[in-house]
């Protein structure tokens, strides 16, 4: 079994921001928490999905709420483990391993904190292979894993349990609790057996994110130089295609809240001002890239904006007028191209009236 120690965290956090495709929040604070947990409890065991017993009991854990709130309401080192403790008490069963909701952003790190404190392994994989805004978009839910029984804990240890009929209803209820509890909660949900996890997880993404972060770090510099090293790791992976689709300056970025999400658009001009600009549609994540009427890439494929000079990925909440950026597009894992998955993550689910065309066919 592989171990995750302090030396992996910078790369994991950097890789996770890339895979977050603009969403997922800044992993700086979750990373600090993970560092504190590893310092206190030692390295974390990483278990491959296929190494789990079919009857093992696994629960995904992560934060739900507004990234902005976590800037002020700092998480605690023991919060994730307490959530697992409370969940175990609620369902009357010990958890054998924890898993991640989404590899994109801070939620890639929360399971590590729980695993470190509890002394249990974390699954090498996640429920999205990227970041997406809603619970029913998780591969666990798409593969038929039920969200409840679920349990949420706030910063003060207040606890709520959920038993809902559908994932959509669960999503609505958990958001209400997050708001009532001050804007940020930790939840354990979509508990499943090892057998269920094996057919619903996006495998290997935790170790892939570390590898991706290392690639970004070692090839730090202008975006053109990044393309080859990125292709070298994406092409043979579950992701596949990787393209550098645009380079230029952000000349406009406007978002507003619609239905509890940050919705809007960014416009990027080429450095020399030539040709039509690239437009990126945002709903927490970067979801659609177009030039004029032409689609350059769309959800569920990954659209990533990086700082032109350093190749550092930029979150949507930090993207601003004047930023000099490069835009990469990366294919999504095959799981998200199945009819069952596309039913909940195709462009129309986000209000874009287009059919999904895989990146490599655009």
């Amino acid at each position: 079994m592989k171990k995750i120690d302090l030396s992996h965290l910078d790369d994991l956090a950097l890789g996770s921001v890339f895979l977050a495709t603009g969403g997922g929040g800044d992993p700086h604070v979750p990373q600090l928490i993970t560092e504190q947990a590893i310092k206190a409890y030692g390295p974390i065991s990483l278990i491959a999905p296929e190494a789990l017993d079919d009857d093992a009991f696994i629960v995904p854990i992560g934060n739900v709420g507004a990234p902005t709130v976590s800037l002020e309401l700092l998480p605690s080192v023991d919060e994730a483990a307490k959530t697992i403790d409370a969940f175990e008490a609620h369902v009357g069963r010990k958890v054998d391993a924890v898993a991640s909701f989404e590899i994109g952003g801070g939620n890639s790190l929360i399971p590590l904190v729980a695993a470190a404190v509890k002394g249990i392994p974390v699954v090498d994989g996640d429920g999205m292979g990227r970041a997406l805004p809603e619970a029913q978009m998780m591969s666990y839910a798409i593969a038929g894993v039920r969200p409840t029984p679920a349990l949420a804990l706030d910063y003060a240890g207040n606890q709520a349990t959920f038993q809902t009929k559908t994932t959509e209803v669960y999503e609505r209820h958990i958001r209400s609790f997050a708001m009532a509890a001050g804007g940020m909660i930790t939840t354990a949900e979509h508990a499943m057996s090892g057998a269920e996890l094996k057919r619903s997880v996006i495998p290997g993404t935790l170790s892939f994110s570390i590898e991706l972060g290392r690639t970004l770090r070692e090839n730090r510099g202008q975006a053109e130089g990044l393309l080859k090293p990125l292709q070298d790791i994406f092409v043979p992976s579950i992701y596949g295609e990787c393209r550098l689709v645009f380079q230029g300056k952000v000349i406009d970025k406007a978002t507003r809240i619609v239905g509890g999400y940050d919705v809007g658009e960014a416009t990027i001009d080429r450095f020399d001002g030539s040709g039509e600009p690239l437009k990126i549609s945002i709903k927490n994540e970067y979801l659609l890239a177009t030039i004029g009427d032409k689609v350059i890439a769309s959800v569920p494929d990954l659209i990533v904006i990086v700082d032109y000079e350093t190749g550092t990925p930029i979150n949507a909440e930090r993207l601003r007028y004047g930023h000099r950026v490069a835009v990469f597009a990366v294919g999504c894992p095959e799981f998200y191209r199945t009819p069952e998955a596309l039913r909940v993550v195709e462009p129309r689910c986000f209000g874009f009236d287009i059919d999904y065309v895989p990146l490599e066919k655009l």
Partner: protein
Amino acid sequence: MRIGIDVGGTHTDAVILNGDDVIAATKALTSADVISGVTAALDEVLKQSGVSVSSIRTVMIGTTQFTNAIIERRELSRAAVIRIGLPSGRGMPPMVDWPQDMIDAIDAEVYMLHGGYLYNGWPVADMRDDEVNAAVSDIQRKGIKNVSIASAFSPMNNTPETQVAEKVRAAIPDARITLSHSFGRLGLMERENAAIMNTTLLPFADRVVTSFLGALAQRGLTCPAFISQNDGTLMNADFVRAYPALTFASGPTNSLRGAYKLTGLENAIVVDIGGTTSDIGVIQNGFPRESNVIVNVGGIRTNFRMPDILAIGLGGGSLVSSDGRIIGPQSVGHKLVTEGLVFGGRTLTTTDILVASGHSDIGDKARVAHLAPEVVTQATATMHTMLNDNIEMMKPGGKDMPVILVGGGAVLVTDGLNAASKLHRPENAGVANAIGAAIAQVGGESERMLSYRQTPRAEAIASVTRAATDRAIKAGADRATIRAVDIEETAVPYMDEGATRVRVKVIGELAQ
């Protein structure tokens, strides 16, 4: 008339401005005691201009003393650090991600207390009197005088910070206290970092401001004195005794503002070419364009707004490869005068290329006579390409923009710059920083998280603008000239519809 002074690590520059005209300018060495360097520079400009001290209306000072103190870990005082936010953030104490040498340098005592507020106005937890009293007595017992206080969501509700400050002051009347909400923006850790760094600089700030004012008094300058801050606006000198951290980025800011003043161009790219780097910045409406990314000061994350500067390794001392195709980022720096070829050294630098190309006659031209003309041509082309490409990246919207060259290395640009719609080489470019200080305005900034459901948008923006205006007036601005220069609204995702972070920056002319 006004005097602008720039107290840097190496040089202390001074200028006298009569309206828009520079009537005297000088460069002196910065002295160890600061004060004698300032008086020397003052004497020189007063002598040059023949102006009597009574006709000087204001003195503006820009300084990198406080930035340097943080970076070099010197002049820092012991601090007590109070955070009010439990039960959130357990196991995530203040300074958790600081470099160890900085933690050692300030030798802080940390106190984590219950309290603070949530975004929606509910308390995180009730404050506990016994907890607060125990912390205050411990600080008192340990004899610590410099205290920073930060609480969760204090930009929205600062009561916890002010209440604890009152208790500290009651117990320790001569305590110097920094409250994190003075540094505005959301982001508890970054705001707290700013407050701690500020606190640890307070005794030094007191000494520096006293020397500045002492130097002015010695020369009979009784007019008001101001110090320039990060965003190119001014604070009155006594304000700096309380907020030295607000000067952290004033160096590059003054250089950009000075370039603006020297040319009158409200929108331009400024290239400041020194010995080791070319710093490229952008002037928008007369002020520096600010950076988007989290800025580190001395290895510590802060929430300060800093100018967006692109530094490239091209300066007067940059190393040139033998074929002229690669320049920098290594530089001989201040050793240029011994290591450059034209000065009898053995290193091929950009200055040698300049002399070999016949554009300058410093040093001994014979020592570069052996350089092949094609190498000189290639190296000259490489320098210009580097500048053009990087200026291109800084230009907003691909629009044509003029470029202002300042700094000692500006002579390297011999062939014009394609990236510039027009190239400006202002007179007195060497003292751009002091000029930037001399023309600083007074600003104020405020930021709050509000719900547009509870507070209509217009009313919300007006209340944040009022808070920013109050800050500007407190910092010395004339109320009648204050205008909002930046209003930023950030919706908070996943939350109640209408939850929005509103930030307003105002500036105004200095009150006479």
